[in-house]
């Protein structure tokens, strides 16, 4: 019998339905893998009992013929989603010990679809980071190693690095992620899995600890495009509790999957060929072009002239919103409180926030506070919003000559932990290819395209028009089929 933890979501779902194995066997298998993978530090909280309970319910439902779309499938939950009765920290000290009395809409939908929870996955603190080195609960380690004989611990990407690492290491078949500037796509690329950030508004933000409200969007991460389609169908949908949620039906993405791209035009944004891009990334991109061409698509060059302003605009808008969103962590109602002797209210705020937030969060709160402050608002925030509009217009113009865009996901393969930590700007550059789609609220997906010379995964990114998740998934599927990416990390943990 195959190892159950090597199966994809679709395979677990179908095999379980067919009676090849029980849901409990699946849950036990993954629970065991989770327990054995401490070295990866992918989980902040493990919830084996939740996975088992859901599995038992699924097994019972199979007997009664009452199966749901994700019955029998255990998943990982990024610890940015509030989970009723289970500690939710956003990987921060300030929320350590916080146990919500409510369930985020997205996680609730997944449980309603029959999924079970293996645990809460580690992430960059408050989802701020591109390497998973900002978690209060320690770095997540990528299961991948370079083939250069060195033994450097690699970054799984961020912020959904716990999700990425866990899926890649077979600790779960799928997980939730959130993407604000690339936090699903870049970690997916770093560990050789797929992940899609849907159109802004497809998935409810209710119950998701906010980073930057106008950008945050939940999405799935899994090893295959099909699994992403299955997961996204369960996660998406209108939520009256989120006024930015889109009041639209959820398409049957899995059912409509097709890698036949005849009649599709794929745009290659010339401005994404940034200076100092490694030749390997360029080569990967060429390979992607060939794949899509082979799938029947026509390749056209397009221009997104304001691309170079996207990153600076993002690193103004996101911290601005974050500085405000994180103001509620003040030590008054929940989480940590620091109350030095003789402290007044302002002292309590300062001490609580100083002790409760990590350096990267503080950096962004400071940046955000600065760019919103009197005298600088117009120079920074207003200007960044204008850039955001121009970037959206760039995409609108591009859609006049193409249906989808192809670009690399990140400018490099995974780097070693600690390598970029001293240089925040170099770290921010990781998001250079993912941020524009975030600013425009467009669906975008990373799918593995191949390995670099050191044997590390590289991701290709498909960006689509608003609401065209299907087009994005289909193009990603075409790449997946042609790339034949089967590499997996060797088990060392």
């Amino acid at each position, binding site marked *: 019998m195959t190892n159950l933890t090597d199966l994809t979501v679709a395979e677990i779902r179908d095999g379980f339905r067919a009676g090849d194995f029980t849901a409990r066997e699946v849950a036990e298998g993954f629970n065991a893998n989770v327990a054995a993978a401490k070295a990866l530090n992918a989980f902040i909280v493990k919830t084996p009992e939740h996975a088992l309970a859901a599995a038992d319910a699924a097994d019972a439902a199979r007997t009664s013929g009452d199966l749901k779309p994700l019955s029998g499938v255990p998943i990982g939950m990024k610890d940015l989603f509030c989970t009723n009765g289970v500690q939710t920290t956003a990987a921060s000290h300030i929320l350590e010990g916080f146990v919500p009395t409510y369930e985020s809409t997205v996680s609730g939908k997944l449980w309603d679809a029959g999924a079970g929870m293996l645990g809460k996955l580690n992430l960059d603190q408050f989802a701020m980071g591109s390497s998973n080195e900002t978690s209060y609960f320690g770095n997540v380690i990528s299961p991948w190693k370079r083939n250069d004989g060195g033994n450097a611990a690699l970054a799984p990407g961020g912020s959904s690095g716990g999700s990425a690492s866990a899926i890649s290491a077979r600790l779960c078949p799928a997980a939730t992620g959130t993407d604000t500037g690339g936090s699903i796509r870049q970690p997916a690329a770093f560990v050789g899995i797929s992940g899609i950030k849907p159109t802004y508004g497809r998935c409810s*933000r*209710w119950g998701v600890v906010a980073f930057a409200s106008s950008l945050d969007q939940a999405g799935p991460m899994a090893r295959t495009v099909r699994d992403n389609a299955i997961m996204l169908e369960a996660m998406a949908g209108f939520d009256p509790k989120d006024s930015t949620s889109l009041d639209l039906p959820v398409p049957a993405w899995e059912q409509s999957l097709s890698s036949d791209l005849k009649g599709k035009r794929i745009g290659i944004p010339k401005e994404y060929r940034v200076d100092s891009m490694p030749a390997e990334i360029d080569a990967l991109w060429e390979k992607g072009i060939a794949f899509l061409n082979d799938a029947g698509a026509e390749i056209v060059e397009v221009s997104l002239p304001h691309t170079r302003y996207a990153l600076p605009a993002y690193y103004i808008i996101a911290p601005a919103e974050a*500085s*405000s969103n994180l*103001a509620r962590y003040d030590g*008054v109602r929940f989480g940590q409180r620091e109350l030095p002797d003789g402290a007044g209210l302002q002292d309590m705020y300062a001490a609580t926030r100083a002790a409760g937030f990590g350096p990267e969060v503080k950096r962004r709160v400071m940046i955000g506070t600065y760019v*919103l402050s009197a005298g600088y608002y117009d120079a920074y925030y207003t200007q960044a919003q204008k850039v955001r509009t121009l970037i959206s217009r760039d995409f609108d113009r591009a859609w006049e000559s193409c249906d989808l865009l192809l670009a690399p996901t990140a400018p490099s393969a995974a780097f070693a932990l600690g390598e970029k930590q001293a240089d925040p700007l170099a770290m921010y550059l990781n998001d250079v290819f993912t941020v524009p789609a975030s600013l425009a609220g467009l669906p975008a997906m990373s799918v593995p395209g191949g390995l670099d010379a050191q044997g590390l995964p590289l991701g290709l990114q498909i960006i689509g028009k608003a609401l065209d998740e299907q087009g994005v998934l289909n193009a990603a599927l075409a790449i997946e089929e042609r790339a034949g990416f089967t590499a997996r990390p060797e088990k060392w943990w």
Partner: protein
Amino acid sequence: MTEATYRIHGATGEWEVVIGLEVHAQITSNAKLFSGASTTFGAEPNTQVSLVDAAMPGMLPVPNRECIRQAVRTGMAIDAQINRYSRFDRKNYFYADLPQGYQISQLYHPIVGEGEIVVTLDEKNPDSATKTIGIERIHVEQDAGKLMHDQHPTRSYVDLNRSGVALMEIVSKPDMRSPVEAGAYVRKLRSILRYVGSCDGNMEEGSMRADVNVSVRKPGDEFGTRTETKNVNSVRFVMAVIEHEANRQVDVLESGGKIVQETRLYDPDRNETRSMRSKEDAHDYRYFPDPDLLPLELDDAFLDECRASLPELPDAKRKRYESELGLSAYNAAVLTAEAETARWFEALVSESARIQNKGEGDVAKAAANWLLSELFGALNRLGRDLDTSPVSPAQGAELLSLVADGTLSGTLAKQVFEIMLETGDEAGKIVEEKGLKQTSDTGAIEEAAAKIIAENADKVEQYRGGKEALFGFFVGQTMKAMGGKANPKVVNEIMKKALQA
């Protein structure tokens, strides 16, 4: 009639006062601005707090359509520009009663733009001068919670019941020049809000409160530096703040000082304002558009519905009372000042017209007079208001109809009304049971008149000698002899004849 110009007489001459008001009016709605939590006044602390109001992680605001509707209707009631596009902004600051760390408000694009309110400066005299006070804007925002410092020796508690309650901030232009104008403005504004039903105007419960901006200048000069006195919660206090603050500023300026732009607090016990904080340590609120909320875009159907749901407003009503019902300007003004009075009056008139089978214009004057003198007098005595009046409009109408058809004289009507107040009985029943019917029996009246004349021969002589004022004496005595039940008109006729004989 012209109003005397309000001036402060300082040592260096006369000073003019410039006043602008920011009135915070709690929107009448069952739920908060962005959550479904209740807004009932006086509930136990922290019993009306949703996860959103407590700003728990991941919670998001969803606008309450009813609050938006009420703000739009209020804007329409003051002929203001209604902005089809408006947006919510975050006003960021830290305080323990502000769970989110920001207040959701509207700075850049308020829902209502410029409008105006016409006030009568001397409300006792409807013919006195009127003044138009400009409204700068109305925006919608959340209220904060409340800190309670007196519950524990070393701790402060937070009550979040008010956190997230919807407020309209109604910002006037600096158009007012005297405490009287400001008082009239607040009263008129409150009257309009109550008519519209968008705020109950209850200043004691805090559902309406004003921030008072005051500056002084030599007449004709540029605006001076202003101070803002926060959370003033009665019309009387608003006027007191202006008077006090204007005099204080004149004193400061005349003794060579400078006015600091600052926030002040009013202490009604000592009738003084005190500095709360100066602008130097004022907050930088770092306003920016709330990314959790889409801009509000109002469509025609919504605006049409808002407009159609507006009641007749006080000014229009007052004009109609004068022109259609033939009421005096004063009576029309008093009857329309409060929505509740007008509602009561209209019920009384329509019922009167129905049972007397007359037009409303034929019964309105008597109804107005009775309501304003008899009923209001009685309610005043009893310490009650129209809401809790022991006599209903229908009962009042019955009483008035008995006067109109001659069954009751004015004196008898007063007696019957007193009994109604006590017993709650219908006027007709009281008349029947107590035999209080007016009589026009000429025989009995002639007999009584003759008796009075006979008993007062001296006065008859004086009357006949030209002292005509004595006529009232004879009528009064006859009425008294008849036990108040005689029809005064008949008594008049008979007495006139008898005295001429």
